């Protein structure tokens, strides 16, 4: 599997700025991790090492925090993250079938990434757009979110959505 480039000099610069801003802040670890996840799309071990040194927090503790929260990941995700909302309102309107359709289409299950790092599938927590249930969001870090709501779940919809990317 091709390795995705995660740590670039430009991104490291952003991390430095973020560390400087949060170094002496009470409870600064969470904001730093949130920001790192945004900058790199994940929090790889080499970034964790820098955070550990700068904030003077043991690696073990940082690893503990990262693995505790769903939004943090150590491995890089795909360019397009397909999030199928699995909140109750979407679930009772057959969101599970949308997840299955993506799996059938591109061969990855929830929380998995395609080998070319193009797509990651997430069965996500309630996005709070229950009036549009069932909802699917396709996110790209540069282009932002594309939201698909009021899906009919009659089959073929996810294929059409995926083919747009």
């Amino acid at each position, binding site marked *: 599997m091709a390795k995705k480039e995660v740590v670039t000099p430009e991104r490291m610069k952003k991390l430095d700025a973020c560390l400087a801003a949060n170094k002496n802040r*009470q*409870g*600064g*670890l*969470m*904001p730093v*991790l*949130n920001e790192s*996840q945004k900058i790199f799309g994940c929090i790889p071990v080499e970034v964790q090492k820098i955070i550990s040194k700068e904030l003077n*927090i043991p690696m073990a*503790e940082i690893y*503990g*925090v990262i693995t*505790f*929260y*769903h*939004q*943090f990941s150590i491995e890089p995700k795909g360019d397009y993250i397909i999030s199928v909302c*699995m*909140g*109750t*309102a979407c*679930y*009772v*309107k057959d969101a599970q*079938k949308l997840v*299955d*359709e993506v799996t*059938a289409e591109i061969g990855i299950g929830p929380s998995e990434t395609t080998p070319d790092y193009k797509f990651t599938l997430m069965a996500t*927590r*309630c*996005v*709070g*757009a*229950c*009036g*549009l*249930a069932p*909802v699917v969001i396709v996110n790209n870090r540069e282009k932002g979110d594309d*939201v698909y*709501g009021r899906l009919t779940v*009659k*089959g*073929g919809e996810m294929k059409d959505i995926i083919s747009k990317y």
Partner: protein
Amino acid sequence: MTALEKLNNTKQITMKNLELRLGKQAGDNKRHVLICEGTGCLSADAAKIEGIFADEVKKNNLADSVEIVRTGCFGYCQVGPIVIIYPEGSFYSRVKLEDIPKIVQEHLLGGAPVKDLLLPEAVNADGSITPFNDVPFYKIQKRVALRLCGLVNPENITEYIAFDGYQALNKVLGMKREDVIKEIKDSGLRGRGGGGFSTGMKWEFCFKTENAQKYVVCNADEGDPGAFMDRSILEGDPHSIIEAMAIAGYAIGANKGFVYVRAEYPIAVNRLQLAIDQAKDFGLLGEKIFDTDFAFDLEIRLGAGAFVCGEETALLNSIEGKRGMPNPRPPFPAVKGLWGKPTIINNVETFANIPQIILNGAAWLNAMGTEKSNGTKVFALGGKVENAGLIEVPMGTTIRDIVYEIGGGIPNGKEFKAVQIGGPSGGCLTKDQLDAPIDYDSLLELGAMMGSGGLVVMDEDNCMVDIARFFLEFTVDESCGKCPPCRVGTKRMLETLIRITEGKGEMEDLERLEVLANNIKASSLCGLGQTAPNPVLSTLRYFRDEYIAHVKDKKCPAGACTELLEFFIEDSCKGCTLCKKACPVDAIIGERKELHVIDQEKCVKCGACIPKCPFKSIVKK
């Protein structure tokens, strides 16, 4: 000029401009175009709608008479994207981009609302128009926490000030701290985040704990699936939360507050940050507020996707930068909270009530709702109802009124089956409880709970065992792992439920589930574990037949549990072979142009064949 004079000046000037939104004709052909830009409508192109309106207004030289206003959620999400035009209160629903030039030409230029683009219920038989807050969806609602959502521009502090904003803060700064707390206590306000603990009592405990440093925390870690009221308040009326937190800070003697928000709510976070900055610029946060010695500062902290962080001690740990795991209580946060200092934690909706209680008095809130549950409650109504959205009703309103009067009943002529209240901590109620009043205590009695107010309606196609499994899967995933009853117990319950939905259950499993559930409830460390078994217990109580059907007959009456269904091809099959090609296990037999048959031995029930069939001949039974 004193700070209060500055505030009142702004109020007066702004109100003059806003009067036409209150149904008062402003004359001069002035109009306000309010565009809902809550998350729901923004997901349906509301930002583009604003852009096109702006272009059209410019093109037609209407800039002097028309104001385009970005607002928070109107609540009627089902018919979004929504645009309301004042002074008429014309309710444009499901607005399409291509409709906008027509609205601008006929309504803004011509002065006549475009009737065929309005919400159908808003146009009467005689051709007259019902203003937006009088359509059936809003009729029995009572908006307190959502008072300004959809009425003001949340990104403009002066509009909040026009509607009495920050007057309550000014008022309390002239009161004794004890009197502020007494007012809140007397109002009977109970925590809207789920527990229903008296807000005034919480404040009093913290007030009585002596410490030079105290904190106010707002819990906006809204994790319940199907609930989005806290987000909508932050998006639609962020200043009410800022004002309330400052009031709380004064009452208990804290000079610092934190708002802990889910990172999944970027719009809410941006609007709140903007509101905090504006309040600081206006002198309503920071040092010497209203020329007194009171100082208060506010900071946003983001969560990172952990449901358990909605539990107060877990939330505090998360703010401190740790794993968000709960601590045993006591000590309660009011005594020993954030960084060991006395802290009060209130939910967003609770805070949204505070300024109005201060301005209108305790008796005002007391007059609404039931004896022990005062005021109103916001619910996120969703699932199988005609009108999904965000609603606010007086406590004590019946489930029937909510589902049928506001929700408009069940779509597609289906039968109402159950309503799930309170998310993963709550329970399912049936049509026998439709007339039960919704308040904290009656819901607990029925085996559900208020929770944060998610209200998901289900019809005959939803399997209650499957729903119980769905919630258990959620809690197993979100259990923090600190205490064994929750970590291990919920996992065992889930395994049992999966067995049942796969047709491998035994009758003894039902009893085992109940015993285990009660043990988990009694022995878990925090609210997550203590309430996690509720979805299972309530469905076992009201839908036991359905469990028995799964166990004894190996059938799913609702037709939802795939493992218990068999796939069949009906006679309408034309033999196109598309399904045969789609089948991953070669279970479909049949020659071209001949009726196909599914080999039940081979079929893995993946469902891949169903969408492929152009004749809809494949059915599950």
